[in-house]
């Protein structure tokens, strides 16, 4: 698999046991926890692994490429006495790597004198800058009601067959530094993009590659690919390798980096598999008890720090098994990330793109990046009002399904109309439509104007006077 050759290190010939991707190696002295090993099979092929547990003269080793083809007697394990490091360099942008960070685009090994530990280190909370600058994605359901900020981690929760890849590609293509509503367009600083694929099909990786090529971004993209037919255990390293490069670019090269991780559900699968092979006590649905901490060790590698101008913004993509948001992967992700964009099956069936289910979606940092001097003064209350009205629409729909639309009160009928228009005009937009923030706000007000003024208790009276255009606007 890997072509690294490293000299030195203690070598053990033969392993005691092989269980799935795990080797039990006996006879090595003073092994370090988490150190990298190089494994040679009987034909001289090399692969890499990592120490998961050490005892006296015993080491439990996880083999990234899996153990297929390894034999008890013919396997040699060399302990490299260091944790897993990858080279990091600006010239890695424009390149494609495998899930462990080796180039697979036919190009040379990146030249670098910097090797960084893929595990990274926690950012000291005192060193962080709280995110405040919004990213305009041109997508109303994000910019308007779930605003993304530079330095935020905001996942897409999706399901099989839904257009999460298109949405992620659209975000990446359109993302620019946001500005105050109405301000003239400026040359936005461009994002560097670090893309990590875990267990997705080749088509998906290809789709993103084409999309980056078409938008002319390819020279700013580094891709780390562990595809569906690549070894599952390697997936555990892939996002770490990607984030290690992202940290270098953001914090040492002052770049604004967008990291797309897809599909985190496959990552979780790999973690679960290893945990099960090791016979660990599971928590929910067979996932290990440390799933939360493990995911946090990836997602928390996002943000801004005071000593650099750069930032890392993460967009992890998860397909929810059975569209179940309470499944451990989306659930624990939602507990760590700063909100979530949820795609809805029904909207997707109805042909709405992007099918963002607004109600369960959230951007926790939105409140700090919008409003006066950032987007527009009315934006926070306008957003809360749209949410409240759309939530009310759901109740009205439920009622209508019982008593029939004709029996609804006049106000409730208006809510039904509002709801439909909200989905068709606000949520729905084309894959190429890049809406300005003022356009998004304008559409929202147009929709709110379909409701009686009295219903709009979240926006203030001045805002109603200024933006409300409904039939009872005058009184």
């Amino acid at each position, binding site marked *: 698999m890997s072509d690294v050759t490293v000299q030195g290190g203690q070598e053990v010939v033969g392993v005691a046991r092989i269980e799935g991707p795990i080797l039990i190696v006996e006879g090595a*002295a*003073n*092994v*370090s*926890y*988490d*150190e990298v090993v190089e494994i040679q099979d009987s034909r001289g092929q090399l692969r890499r692994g990592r120490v*998961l*547990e*050490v*005892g*006296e003269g015993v080491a439990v080793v996880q083999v990234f490429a899996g153990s297929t083809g390894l034999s008890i007697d013919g396997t040699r394990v060399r302990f490299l006495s260091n*944790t897993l490091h990858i080279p990091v360099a600006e010239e890695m942008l424009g390149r494609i790597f495998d899930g462990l960070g080796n180039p697979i685009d036919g190009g040379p090994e990146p030249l670098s004198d910097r090797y960084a530990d893929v*595990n990274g*280190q*926690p*950012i*000291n*909370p*005192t*060193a*962080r800058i*709280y995110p405040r600058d919004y990213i305009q994605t041109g997508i109303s359901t994000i910019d308007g009601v779930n605003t993304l900020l530079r330095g935020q981690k905001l996942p897409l929760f999706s399901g099989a067959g839904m257009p999460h890849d298109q949405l992620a590609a659209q975000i990446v293509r359109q993302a620019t530094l946001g500005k105050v509503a109405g301000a003239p367009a400026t040359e936005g600083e461009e994002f560097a993009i670090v893309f990590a694929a875990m267990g997705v099909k080749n088509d998906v990786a290809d789709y993103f590659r084409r999309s980056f090529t078409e938008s002319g971004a390819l020279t700013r993209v580094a891709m780390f690919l562990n595809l569906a037919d690549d070894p599952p255990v390697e997936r555990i390293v892939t996002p770490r390798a990607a984030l290690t490069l992202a940290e270098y670019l953001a914090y040492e090269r002052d770049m604004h980096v967008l990291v797309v991780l897809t599909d985190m559900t496959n990552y979780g699968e790999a973690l679960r598999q290893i945990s099960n092979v090791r016979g660990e*006590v599971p*928590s*929910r649905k067979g996932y290990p*008890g*440390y799933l*939360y*901490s493990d995911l*946090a*060790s990836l997602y*928390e*590698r996002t*943000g801004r*720090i005071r*000593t650099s101008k750069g930032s890392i913004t993460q967009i992890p993509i998860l397909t929810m098994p059975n569209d179940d948001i*309470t499944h*451990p992967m989306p*659930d624990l992700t*939602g*507990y*760590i990330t700063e909100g979530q964009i949820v795609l809805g099956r029904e909207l997707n069936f109805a042909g709405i793109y992007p099918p963002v289910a607004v*109600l369960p979606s*959230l951007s*926790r940092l939105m409140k700090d990046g919008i409003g006066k001097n950032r987007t527009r003064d009315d934006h*926070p209350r306008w957003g*809360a009002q749209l*949410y*409240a009205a759309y*939530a*009310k629409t759901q109740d009205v729909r439920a*009622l209508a399904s*019982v*008593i029939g639309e004709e029996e609804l009160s006049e106000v409730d009928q208006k809510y039904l109309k509002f709801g439909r228009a909200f989905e068709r005009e606000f949520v729905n937009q084309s894959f190429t439509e890049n809406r300005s923030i003022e356009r998004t706000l304008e559409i929202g007000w147009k929709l709110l104007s379909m409701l009686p003024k*009295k219903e709009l*208790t*979240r926006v*203030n*009276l001045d805002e109603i006077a200024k933006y409300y255009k409904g039939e009872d606007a005058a009184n």
Partner: protein
Amino acid sequence: MSDQVGTITWISGPVVRARGSRNVGMLELVEVGSEHLVGEVIGLKGDQMTIQVYEETSGMQTGSPVYGTGLPLSVELAPGLIQSIYDGVQRPLPLIEQAMGSFISRGARFDPINREKKWKYTPKVKVGDEVQGGAILGVAMETDTFEHRVMLNPDDSGTITWVAPAGDYTVVDPIVKLKTSKGEKTVEMLQRWPVRRARPFVDRRGANIPLITGQRILDTFFPVAKGGAAGIPGPFGSGKTVTQHSIAKWADAEVIVYIGCGERGNEMTEVLQEFPHLIDPRSGRPLMERTVLIANTSNMPVAAREASIYTGITIAEYYRDMGYHVALMADSTSRWAEALREVSGRLEEMPAEEGYPAYLAGRLAEFYERAGYVNNLNGSQGSVSIVGAVSPPGGDFSEPVTQHTKRFIRCFWALDKSLASARHFPAINWLDSYSEYVTDVADWWREKVGKDWLDMRNRAMELLSEESRLSQIVKLVGPDALPYTERMVLETTRLIREGILQQNATEDVDAYSSVEKQIRLLELVLYFHDRGMAIVRKGAPINLIHDLPVVDTIIRAKSTVTNEEMHKFDDIQKQIDQQMGQLDAEYRS
């Protein structure tokens, strides 16, 4: 100190086993490996010890040494705690940043309390005084206005033989000398206390004073008493953290201990950047000047996360012992429970429910038991109130941490996903929540605002539960089927929900409601209800009430009327009188 007591034989994440001396104590603090990482002995069997390590163990080798310290895991207590931010084992994060840069690497060793800084100190004892543990020896000004009462360690006592004169001292300068049964002892401002041992007090007092948080749904509907314990469970994104931040900002406690336990780095940064600029409405000083922060974020070592809760509660008790009201926020206790589970799993202990160790309930009980309004050893009274966030997987309250927590708290603020989705904040479900302090604090309200809060609160609760019953009917047959009197209930409960329960933490005027404003709003809404009810009983159609302009005025009052403009409520009441009076006149039969 620091003799080698063992040799590492096994490493798995934060858990390490070593073999060696039989003299190491259970819960003794040890230094592990060549880098002297901090750890704690959590298991002993013959010459085998199990250690949880508070730092990342990557790269640690078997065969490396373990050093003993002879001491249990302790915190340092002295002036200088306030305005600090520590990790879970009380390492000062700003110093770590100075020394190591933006990322936390291993092996950081810093004094939790500055040894050089001098504090303005005034003695409160004199030579010849007999002093017992907890006695106040003197006071130091910890901020311009906060008086730090320097106490004798609860385990000490004796006769004072020397007292330092008033002056500026560091925390390690001698301030008192004592003759004790074991000889002469020099006392400094700095004392240490083992975190896993509750600090002693004389006895508990009744918890009958509410902790006022300025949050209407809490104070008016589900109050927690000073010295009480509350749990706030909710799925992700439902408002645990925002509610905890709001309490940390506005609660009428003198000291706030905020523990970010296994949660986001940005949330701690937010507090750090915001609190110095927010002014405490009571003291007029920046909120940071009463706050101690413990930040062991989700990506920091998991064993230190387990310790963070104890570090925080011990600091809280220390200020309680001075006679202060302390409020402690722990966000989130579930992450602490998971840290227990993770360590337990590595030890291959027999799991109970969902992989949690069988001692989970015991640990939760010990923690919440450390809340209380107490008579201190020195005769003063102080309290520690605990507000613990709970993060149930999938938002399912039947999981072990939520269920066990419920046994040890008396106030349950149940967050609700569907309210949060509709952006009804705080998304605390009024039907699922409860407070067992309601009757205990009723007298306080009566004295404080001179009104029958309990009666009004209970009436509002009745209306809300009536609403829930009526909504079931509405869902089946639509609102038109209800008689006007019942629809009047729905009009009023809308005012309660939108005008009182909903409170926007990000809006200046609305973020904090004084108790006076809270009770006045409630009174107005109930007044509206009584007047409206009288009118619909006479046969007036409900839409006439619904369309009254004052409805909108009441709903907006929370954010249009500031805490200082109480008179404006009288105007609103006049509007009710006027508009209802007109209707009343029309339907006088």
